[in-house]
């Protein structure tokens, strides 16, 4: 077929109607002319008309040939099959709904996982020739193949000799407070080498980007490049931003440009808002002298990308760098003796080189799980289709008898399952999109460390992949039923009246599938139930403070370049302004609060038992608080006193300890007035407070030290506000007031204590996430198990319709038939439940570290979940069982 004729034929498919009309007109004209000719030869008009028809030949036959000739036969057939499939699916709404729902579960999982994998493993960086980019790291030891970052000093040496590479670039994540127009925001930045943009081939949207040799020396002009997205969000896309000065960590930086919009999608997980020269990293991050990123060979903080020269393979690239690795090991044995070079494609090092390999393994495992789930759901649909095929056998045989070829029959039945899968895809896509959006937000909440914002959008690659998987799922689930149906001997099945030959091995496979699904969903639901029970318990844990009616908010004045005195002033002013708010009872600052992502510790020992010099001193949880913190958080002082304003930098160093520490150091002797050493300073105990939870809600009692804020001013702190008002109502006011105190200081994570505890990993988050994930998967599992059971029982009932008819005709009582059918379902369900309970016991033992005051064998959970599953199973099989009971013997037997 030439291309021209394919185009003609394909277009003919869409113009069928008008082409048919045209042909009709042409034929009518022809017949008229022919009849006219016959009339001229002397026939009567009637005779002439008949003669013309005879001479013309079979009109309908000709039209059919014409139609086949002008269109694409298979396209016409496919259209007819789809139409047929839609009609037959509409006639069986329960079956159709069940099948679509089942496949939708599998497709949602696959779509979700695929979108995540796409972001982490498949999407190319939007830069020129992304395939040339490799991640280069130095692992600390030859046996650990985890790529680490590289030190800046090592990088300089690698860049001296890189024959296989165009060049190497490096970047490191930095966080700072960016102040402009009197407002401050905490932003994530990348400190980048001078060749970062030129080597990647990134263009500016406006202005210019950091250029080679720019900002290499301390004292060079401080410049900053904004990302396109941040430029729009913060500066409304104002082009006059170029050349303007903003303050970063208190220092002036000149905005020189904005990156191209496409480059916003270049990052996975950690999204920067701006780029600064790496040479200014120390300044931006307040790195103490002596720990400079740029000078220490053992600071492996940089992430390095190299661009291979065209035609150079990764192996050749690695080999060329190995020379430098060996040289560095010889020259600097102290830091580089055992270090190994790790070179992998850029896509294997996402979201960053340290955890890239773990992500890859997890990603592949999750991908495999999702495909497995899709296979299970397909098997379920197969089972449903089989049940339907059993009752449709006569329809299919009839079509075969009427001359439909076997391949046409198979194609028609496959069309039906593919149409089902497509509908399931239509259901799955929006569900997956919503789930992914929530997942993105879940990632994005943590502002304390860096802006995490994954992009799991359903881009064309994902959509095409999902469409392909949808078609495959449709074909896979429909293949066996289609061939079975089309193979069936039409004589046998027409005569047998629909009893068809059901094969026992397949029945066993389907039973096993149902049992497996029941077992798995029981396991998931039991795990979910145990999490829910733990969550219940965990909410009642004595935290050591009163979490009700508290609002917290955090500030990092050091990021605005503030020294200890300025920070102290800020903390005092802010607290005063908050106290002035109506309804506020008290407020106090703490360096960190319980269950926060940010925490601190200190080495603590008794003067009488100093730690041995050859081992690191023991670390104890330690925080610094202002005089009103204990009152604000409602932490009672058991002995001694709270801190006062007089415990300042000039006074004697003091501390308050909790009961655990007091009992550990001075058992039964009273701690007040005693002293101990913390980080080398001797301090005197002035108070004892009750034990509390500090890192995790579920931790065992641990020692804790509180020191006065004023004696050691922290870089950051969190304000705890107790009020008589609704905490949620107060949050907005607190945020406004705090930002008004000093616009240069960024205030973040303003939330109620309840929200704080719910969202932080040390709080309830682990339990609620665990409960949610296992419940969602458990619910999906129950749905699949119910549909699987339904499909199987329905299939059996369809096959045995005539048997039931005979039994009823012979006087069997109908409830007995109901029991007969339900009995089988109950047997399968109980096997599944017992197997599931065993599985659940194993799983729960694995989870026991995450369970709080709940036995992994908690009888209540097991019983409730099992009863629930029994009900679901009985309900799923009751629908077809009732059909069996209601079989009309006359109808069933007449089909004979």
């Amino acid at each position, binding site marked *: 077929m030439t291309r021209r004729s394919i185009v003609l034929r394909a277009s003919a498919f869409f113009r069928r109607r008008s082409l048919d009309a045209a042909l009709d007109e042409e034929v009518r*004209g022809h017949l008229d002319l022919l009849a006219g000719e016959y009339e001229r030869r002397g026939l009567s008009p009637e005779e002439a008309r008949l003669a013309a028809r005879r001479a013309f030949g079979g009109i309908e036959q000709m039209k059919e040939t014409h139609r086949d000739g002008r269109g694409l036969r298979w396209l016409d057939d496919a259209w007819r099959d789809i139409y047929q499939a839609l009609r037959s699916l509409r006639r069986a709404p329960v079956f159709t709904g069940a099948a679509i729902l089942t496949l939708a579960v599998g497709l949602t999982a696959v779509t979700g996982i695929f979108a995540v994998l796409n972001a982490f493993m498949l999407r190319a960086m939007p830069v020129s020739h992304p395939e040339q980019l490799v991640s280069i790291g130095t692992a600390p030891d030859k046996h650990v193949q985890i790529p680490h970052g590289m030190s800046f000093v090592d990088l300089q040496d690698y860049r001296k000799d890189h024959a296989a590479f165009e060049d190497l670039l490096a970047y490191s994540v930095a966080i700072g407070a960016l102040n402009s127009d009197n407002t401050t925001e905490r932003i994530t930045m990348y400190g980048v080498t001078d060749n970062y943009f030129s080597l990647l081939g990134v263009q500016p949207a406006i202005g210019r980007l950091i250029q080679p040799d720019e900002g290499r020396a301390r004292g060079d002009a401080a410049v900053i490049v904004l990302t396109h997205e941040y430029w729009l969000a913060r500066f409304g896309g104002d082009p006059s931003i170029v050349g303007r000065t903003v303050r970063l960590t208190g220092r002036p930086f000149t905005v020189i440009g904005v990156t191209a919009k496409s480059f916003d999608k270049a990052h996975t997980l950690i999204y920067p808002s701006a780029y600064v020269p790496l040479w200014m990293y120390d300044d931006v991050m307040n790195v103490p002298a002596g720990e400079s990123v740029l000078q220490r060979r053992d600071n492996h903080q940089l992430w390095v990308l190299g661009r291979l020269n065209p035609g150079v393979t990764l192996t050749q690239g690695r080999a060329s760098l190995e020379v430098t690795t060996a040289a560095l090991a010889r020259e600097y044995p102290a830091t580089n003796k055992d270090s190994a070079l790790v070179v992998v494609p850029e896509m294997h090092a996402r979201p960053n080189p340290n955890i890239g390999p773990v992500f890859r393994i997890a990603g592949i495992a999750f991908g495999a799980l999702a495909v497995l789930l899709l296979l299970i759901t397909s098997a379920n649909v197969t089972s449903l289709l089989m049940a339907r095929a059993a009752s449709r056998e006569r329809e299919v045989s009839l079509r075969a008898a009427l001359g439909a070829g076997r391949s046409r029959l198979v194609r028609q039945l496959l069309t039906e399952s593919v149409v089902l899968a497509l509908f399931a895809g239509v259901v799955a896509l929006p569900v997956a999109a919503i789930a992914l959006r929530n997942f993105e937000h879940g990632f994005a909440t943590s502002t304390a460390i860096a802006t995490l914002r994954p992009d799991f959008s359903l881009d064309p690659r994902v959509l095409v992949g999902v469409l392909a998987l949808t078609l495959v799922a449709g074909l896979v689930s429909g293949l066996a039923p289609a061939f079975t149906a089309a193979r069936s001997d039409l004589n046998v099945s027409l005569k047998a009246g629909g009893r068809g030959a059901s094969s026992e091995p397949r029945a066993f496979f389907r039973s096993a599938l149902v049992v497996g699904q029941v077992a798995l969903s029981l396991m998931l639901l039991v795990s979910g139930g145990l999490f829910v029970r733990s969550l219940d318990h965990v909410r009642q844990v004595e935290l050591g403070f009163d979490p009700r009616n508290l609002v917290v908010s955090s500030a990092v004045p050091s990021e605005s370049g503030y020294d200890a005195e300025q920070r102290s002033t800020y903390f005092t002013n802010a607290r005063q302004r908050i106290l002035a708010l109506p309804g506020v009872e008290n407020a106090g600052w703490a360096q960190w609060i319980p269950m926060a992502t940010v925490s601190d510790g200190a080495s603590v020992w008794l003067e009488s038992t100093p730690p041995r010099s050859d081992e690191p001193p023991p670390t104890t949880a330690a925080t610094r608080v202002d005089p009103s913190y204990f009152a604000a958080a409602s932490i009672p002082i058991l002995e001694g006193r709270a801190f006062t304003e007089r415990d300042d930098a000039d006074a004697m160093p003091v501390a308050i300890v909790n009961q655990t520490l007091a009992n550990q150091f001075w058992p039964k002797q009273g701690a007040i007035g005693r002293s101990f050493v913390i980080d080398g300073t001797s301090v005197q105990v002035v108070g004892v407070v009750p034990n509390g939870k500090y890192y995790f809600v579920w931790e065992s009692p641990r020692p804790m030290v509180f020191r006065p804020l004023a004696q050691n001013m922290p870089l950051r702190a969190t304000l705890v506000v107790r009020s008589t008002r609704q905490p949620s109502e107060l949050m907005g006011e607190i945020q406004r007031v705090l930002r008004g105190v000093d616009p240069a200081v960024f205030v973040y994570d303003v939330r109620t204590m309840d929200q704080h505890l719910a969202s932080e990993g040390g709080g309830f988050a682990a339990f609620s996430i665990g409960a949610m994930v296992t419940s969602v998967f458990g619910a999906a599992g129950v749905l699949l198990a119910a549909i699987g059971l339904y499909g199987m029982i329905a299939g059996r009932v369809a096959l045995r319709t005539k048997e039931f008819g005979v039994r009823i005709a012979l006087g069997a009582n109908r409830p007995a038939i109901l029991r007969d059918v339900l009995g089988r379902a109950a047997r399968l369900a109980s096997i599944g439940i017992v197997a599931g309970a065993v599985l659940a016991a194993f799983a729960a033992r694995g989870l026991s570290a995450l369970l709080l005051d709940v036995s992994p064998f908690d009888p209540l959970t097991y019983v409730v979940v099992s009863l629930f599953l029994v009900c679901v199973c009985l309900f799923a099989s009751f629908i077809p069982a009732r059909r069996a009971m209601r079989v009309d013997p006359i109808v069933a037997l007449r089909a004979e």
Partner: protein
Amino acid sequence: MSPPSSAVPYGALDLMVLKTLDTMGAQHGYGIARRIEQMAEGMLALNQGTIYPALLRLEQKGWIVSDWGTSENNRRARFYSITRAGRKQLAIEADLWSKTVAMMSRMLGESS
């Protein structure tokens, strides 16, 4: 043994249509059918309807084109005309036919 009229040999109809259009210029389906019947002088049993699938085939190959016009009894009718590619094809096939016919008659002449 020879019947008064025979079925159209495979592929011959397309050639007849091309030749007709080449000699007569644009024609509608009826005109083509009649011309073919006249030329066959009763030796051919042609169902006139069968030329329409043939016309479709030729048009899909780009050897003829069609356009709507008015027939002699003042009705809308589709007129077909041969294209340059059609003429080329006609020449090739006519040559092939005469060779085939010459060969066949040589073979049949020898065997008798």
